[in-house]
């Protein structure tokens, strides 16, 4: 039996996962071009983390569970139902942007409809928020869980400790997924933490911790699925660490070669989860060369149309400045 069937994923589901992860990558690549052409002001990239993001989202009950994604989670939000056009609208900060009507920093996703909490710029603030949402689910006796992500550097904030501790004490239906991409801007993992794995921290809170290869969609899917079962069974929160590598500079304003080598990045690119995922699909006859070509063309078209639409869409009206300060 194939690996994906073993863990309960249909052929269609894995193909969909790949399509969404690839869409996230191509969209991100386009946004770099738009940024360099001066069309969008700022970009914080998902490249290298798409596979784990999409796999994790697929392990949730989409439409039912709550999420508090962080700024790299293009894969998560696409998988949960945000469209390429929605993402383009937020990149251009246009009035129609469903995340915030152009009021947010780029990459600060949020959607009431998709049960996705609007994120703020100070990192890790979303962790205690997600724990609060977990408590609300428990109090209402809802079957839903609360899924939150953050970078590994962000686990050093006090909010991480305070949120994780409360969630564990009250056995809340919460999954904290740490997307360990080895860097917090310029600061490498070993300058940030002395423990071997971020998931080691779970022990201190009395919750389950697990580290998985973020480039392996099935490992991530399984870890989040298991964690979600625990959460739904009233067994409390989990800390899942997905290890990957940030393939781009931190943001469109960063020069990563001041603190890491081009060779290191090249090596990481060879292990890109998107490449191994494609290889897996091909080996299992789920993706032919022809289908791949069609897929790439369809994604390109979707991005082209979204870009055209978003670029032409109206900007938010400065007269709306006072809207949303108070009721």
């Amino acid at each position: 039996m194939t690996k994906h069937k073993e863990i309960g994923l249909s052929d269609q589901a894995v193909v969909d996962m790949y399509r969404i992860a690839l869409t996230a990558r191509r969209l991100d690549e386009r946004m770099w071009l738009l940024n360099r052409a001066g069309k969008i002001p700022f970009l914080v990239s998902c490249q290298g983390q798409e596979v784990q993001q999409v796999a994790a989202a697929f392990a949730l009950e989409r439409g039912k569970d709550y999420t508090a994604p962080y700024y790299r989670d293009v894969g998560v939000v696409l998988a949960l139902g945000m469209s390429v056009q929605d993402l383009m609208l937020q990149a251009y900060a246009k009035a129609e942007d469903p995340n915030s009507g152009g009021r947010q920093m780029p990459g600060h996703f949020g959607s009431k409809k998709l049960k996705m909490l609007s994120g703020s710029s100070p990192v890790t603030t979303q962790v205690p928020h997600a724990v609060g949402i977990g408590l609300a689910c428990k109090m209402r006796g809802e079957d839903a869980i609360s899924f939150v992500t953050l970078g590994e550097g962000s686990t050093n904030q006090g909010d991480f400790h305070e949120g994780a501790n409360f969630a564990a004490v009250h056995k809340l239906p919460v999954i904290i997924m740490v997307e360990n991409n080895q860097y917090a801007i310029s600061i490498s993992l070993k300058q940030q933490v002395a423990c071997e794995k971020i998931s080691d921290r779970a022990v201190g809170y009395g919750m389950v911790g697990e580290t998985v290869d973020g480039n392996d969609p099935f490992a991530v899917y399984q870890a989040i699925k298991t964690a979600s079962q625990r959460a739904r069974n009233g067994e409390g929160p989990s800390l899942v660490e997905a290890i990957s590598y940030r393939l781009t500079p931190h943001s469109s304003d960063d020069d990563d070669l001041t603190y890491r080598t081009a060779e290191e990045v090249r090596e990481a690119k060879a292990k890109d989860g998107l490449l191994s995922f494609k290889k897996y699909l091909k080996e299992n006859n789920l993706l032919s060369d022809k289908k791949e070509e069609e897929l790439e063309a369809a994604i390109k078209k979707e991005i082209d149309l979204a870009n055209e639409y978003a670029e032409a869409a109206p900007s938010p009206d400065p007269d709306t400045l006072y809207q949303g300060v108070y009721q």
Partner: protein
Amino acid sequence: MAQMTMIQAITDALRVELKNDENVLVFGEDVGQNGGVFRATEGLQAEFGEDRVFDTPLAESGIGGLAIGLATQGFRPVPEIQFFGFVYEVMDSISGQMARMRYRSGNTMNAPITIRSPFGGGVHTPEMHADSLEGLMAQQPGLKVVIPSNPYDAKGLLISSIRDNDPVIFLEHMKLYRSFRDEVPEEAYEVELGKAKVTREGTDVTLIAYGAMVQASVKAAEELEKNGVSAEVIDLRTVAPLDIDTIVESVKKTGRVVVVQEAQRVAGIAAQIVAEIQERAILHLEAPVLRVTAPDTVYAFTQAEEVWLPNHNDIVEKVNDVINY
């Protein structure tokens, strides 16, 4: 003398003080090898080593607390908060702890800490990257709050801040970082804290400003000159404690005042200045003291930034109001 941008002057001040005093330490997120996200600490780790200039984990409360412990042991920490909007993460360390160390230890301990941080609008960084939060800081007795408007002052004020024996919040307006150059002496020099500067002399109206609003005020004064209005411009340089004497002296001369701040209107530095003026010089006033501020909303989205931020036209308009009162 060398021509320097404000950010170069800041780096230079740090270099000078790292060299002058082995107790000076520079630390924060990405300040080491990377040289800071704005390059304010560029080259300092290479020059002074990893013990004096170092990266911290991503944890502002920890940075502030660490600074306090070090400061009580004779060090002079100069931590960086990457963007001042993130100061909320370290508010307790600042307002609850370092500002009160001297008082609550019966004057036996102190916290000679200088927190540097970029802030300010006009560079398209919404959502907490651009907020002007100096009013919040100024409300805490025990803190000094310094905001330079040009490269020369930035270097001298930063050196004075580092040498000061109490905590200083040193706020660097992002728009000023690279917008122009000044003659800046290469050696160490101080610009006294708590002392405003009369940037431009005038007789009809006093414009009081700080940070990026000094330039806007000077520009307004130049416009007004064309219409025969002589405006004096005061650059506060330190917003806490305020240099009341310089302000009152000018008010007595001109009898008309417009206070300019980039921050929102409510409960800010400008409101404090208006209160001080009416308490000390009301009989010298020919018109109510008016303010030019940003509106009371969350920092504006990009398309509204230009409308939201006060500019020289807004200042000219208010000056005309006080002149024609």
